[in-house]
């Protein structure tokens, strides 16, 4: 092979002094299919953002060479023009527009088939759609050019993105966890598409599903803690070695001793089903119990209904719910968070910036907003000095690192923000704590601290329902793990001699678990 298509040379990027990437170097040759693997937080997405121009050149250290030239992107638009296209986990399409419009909209406007930059070009709809259909047919994609994107399945939307990248003459296509929302059949179809297009494009395939990686890739590049630790040829390695490189230490899982939780469950869910407003089934006959002091993990792929289950129980999932929820032996029907909070059931939502935090407000504001009734003075007004004491003790208890508790939470690191969010509900001293992805986007050190807090809370007698997409997290924290797939319970596993593989098999729907 001659000179590499893409050459990454000593690229570094840090946020607030914490390195997300540290002198990463690797090379990719024309026509290869590379798998990029690494744990969450290993630096995969930061690297992608550099390659796609989200972080413009100059904002990171080191150099990237593409087709022999130094890549100096100023914006994502330039990234696309340079010949590198990226397909994100959350697809970047205009849902209300047609496939044809999505294919051609973001470049100049070739509305009659020839590109034009005029703002007031007449749209030749017919020629426009025919051209889109041609492109789809040429690629062998079974997608109607006139269809509205939001009516398409996720798999077909991905094809639209691939077609768009192809149309933009992308020479390097990066796929970021493309299969997380696909069914098995759709995954196979996607793989056939990738295999077929390998003559025309070079692929970087990001995934943490090793079976897919081994099926597709010629070479596997492993990132760990922001460093490119190794590059392995598929023919010369196996899954065990890749995992070892990813984790960087012998995989040692703390064996959770099986504990007996006898006594009545504090929260009991009986045949809970949920339909969305458009009559789509979100949850189907989900039943589970959790006792005080127990941590119940809930696992499942994207779209399995794991977050929706929590939201449905709390009455904040749109749509209609059937089935029963029992709390402390009483049947309850919470309609909003306030009602659940009155029963001392607390919820930490998954997207902390959108649903959890008041980013412009201080740490103190965020910590106390849910529990203001605890610091009322005799006259019903807020006792600010009392409040300050509570804030101090919460900050201390959760180990939030900050200089001033009035500083806005948006300046805190992800881990500290997550601790503030936890602190807010801990202040409520809940009996049941529902956590949705409690460590998303949190660095490894802070993760351990949050785990310690959760373990501490459980040992104090709190029942914890933990939804997570990270299997190591579930294995480290849970007493039991319930696996969901497409809204149904696939199995419930005691966390004893449990492995990631066992959970994945259930989540992917390949075996039926035994209910215990």
């Amino acid at each position: 092979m001659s000179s590499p298509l893409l050459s990454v040379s000593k690229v570094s990027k840090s946020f607030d002094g914490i390195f997300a990437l540290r002198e990463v170097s690797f090379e990719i040759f024309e026509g290869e299919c590379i798998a990029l693997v690494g744990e969450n937080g290993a630096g995969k997405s930061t690297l992608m953002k550099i390659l796609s121009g989200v972080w413009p050149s100059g904002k990171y250290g080191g150099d990237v060479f593409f087709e022999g030239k130094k890549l100096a992107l100023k914006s994502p638009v330039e990234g696309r023009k340079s010949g590198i296209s990226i397909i994100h986990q959350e697809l970047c399409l205009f849902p209300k527009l047609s496939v044809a419009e999505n294919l051609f909209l973001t470049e100049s406007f070739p509305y009659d088939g020839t590109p034009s930059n005029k703002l007031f070009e007449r749209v030749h709809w017919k020629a426009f759609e025919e051209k889109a259909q041609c492109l789809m047919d040429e690629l062998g994609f079974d997608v109607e050019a006139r269809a509205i994107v939001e009516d398409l399945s996720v798999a077909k939307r991905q094809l639209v993105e691939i077609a768009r990248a192809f149309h933009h003459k992308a020479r390097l296509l990066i796929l970021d966890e493309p299969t997380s929302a696909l069914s098995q059949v759709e995954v196979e179809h996607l793989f056939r598409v990738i295999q077929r297009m390998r003559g025309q494009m070079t692929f970087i395939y990001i995934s943490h599903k090793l079976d897919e990686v081994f099926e597709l890739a010629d070479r596997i590049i492993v990132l760990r803690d922001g460093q490119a630790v190794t590059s392995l040829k598929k023919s010369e390695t196996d899954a065990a070695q890749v995992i070892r490189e990813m984790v960087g230490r012998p995989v040692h899982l703390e064996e959770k001793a099986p504990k007996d939780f006898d006594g009545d469950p504090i929260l009991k869910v009986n045949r809970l089903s949920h339909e969305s407003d458009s009559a789509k089934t979100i949850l189907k006959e989900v039943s589970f119990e959790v006792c005080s002091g127990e941590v119940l993990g809930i696992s499942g792929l994207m779209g399995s209904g794991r977050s929706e289950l929590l939201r449905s129980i709390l009455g904040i999932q749109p749509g209609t719910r059937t089935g029963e929820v029992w709390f402390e032996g009483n049947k309850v029907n919470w309609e909003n968070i306030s009602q659940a909070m009155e029963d001392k059931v607390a919820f930490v939502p998954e997207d902390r910036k959108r649903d959890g935090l008041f980013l412009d407000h201080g740490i103190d504001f965020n910590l106390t907003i849910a529990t203001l009734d605890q610091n009322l003075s005799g006259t019903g007004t807020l006792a600010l000095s009392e409040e300050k004491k509570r804030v101090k003790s919460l900050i201390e208890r959760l180990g939030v690192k900050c200089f001033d508790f009035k500083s806005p939470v948006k300046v805190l690191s992800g881990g500290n923000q997550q601790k503030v969010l936890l602190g807010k509900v801990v202040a409520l001293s809940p009996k049941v704590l529902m956590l949705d992805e409690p460590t998303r986007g949190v660095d490894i050190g802070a993760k351990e601290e949050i785990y310690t807090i959760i373990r501490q809370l459980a040992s104090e007698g709190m029942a914890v329902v933990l939804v997570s997409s990270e299997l190591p997290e579930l294995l480290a924290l849970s007493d039991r793990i319930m696996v969901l797939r497409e809204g149904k319970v696939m199995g419930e596993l005691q966390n004893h001699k449990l492995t990631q593989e066992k959970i994945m098999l259930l989540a992917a729907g390949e075996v039926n678990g035994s209910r215990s």
Partner: protein
Amino acid sequence: MEAVLERLKMKTSNSKLSWKTYQREIIPVLVIVLCALIFDAWSGGAFITPRNLSNLSRQICVNLTLAVGMTLVILTSGIDLSVGSVLALSGMAAAISQVHWQWASSGLVGAVFSFGLAIAVGGLSGATTGMAVSRLKITPFIVSLGMMVIARGLTLIISSAQAVAPLGDTLGRLSSDYVSPQISFVLLLGIAGLGLGVEVLRWVKQSAPGGDIAKNLFAILALCLLGIYTFCNYRGIPYMVFISVLCALVGIFALKYTRFGRFIYAIGGNREAAELSGVPVAKTLWLTYFLMGCLAGLAGVMDSARVNGAVPSAGELGELDAIAAVVIGGTSLMGGMGTIGGTVLGVLIMGTLNNGMSLVGVSEHYQKVFKGLVIILAVYLDLRSKKK
């Protein structure tokens, strides 16, 4: 952990008076002082006189009352465009009760009832707006736009598009009467003493950054001295000023020391998060619009008292003056950030410009152009100071 607490302590006790921290309060004050000096020089010393300042204080009462409510609404990231029309409707209701229903003849009782009627009318329309915003979840802009037209229409209907005048003497005194200079003096001294006491206590207990305390001390002293200069040398504190300043003080207190106030900031800061933190979003929003309506009603009766009657066109563009004062005062239209203290400064800037330009004889048409420019400039400057 001790290290963290140690740092916390240092931070609270070591805060210095820095230009950066307080520029958003200092700049408006400087602008006001500068404007006052310019107008005074230009008018040959007619601006800074007890008589003119007393007039100025009466002119800004209506806007201050509206702007206090508008601050709450905008803090929730809402808007209420109906307040000008609601002001007209409630002022008209008060005038009709005085003139047509002859409540004027029952003296103080009649005046109190008319006063109450105006607030009730305002409260009712605010409650309606609030219901549509909080329960039906219609955008505040649209709801209040509708309510603006409805209230204006109702005003024209109940008044048959005629002016209604004159009010009874008792209600008219709301505008024309003053707390006597002696009592005013005692009141102002009392307020100053109380404020000083509270701040000194906070300083001793170190419960607030030193800069904040200095700022509050400065504000209290400056306002009381200005008040004594203005009111004790000219008839005393006008009733209207007394009422609207009371509204502002209650508003400041409510935002800082009640759950309601905290909830308002929370809703404006991040509505999703507020909902998921158990904040009673719908109830808080409803109450906010209801209070805004009551304040518009109060402003309506004050406005009627000021001109001793009601005209159907009263309060036109009143909502825009109020919104302008709020944003000049540094409250973000996105909600969540801002204070009534800032709004008071915004009202003062607008009032100073209005009064000063009239005093030096700038035509009303030019005044409008100039005011518009000031609004845009103020918001631009605020935007820039936030980015830094």
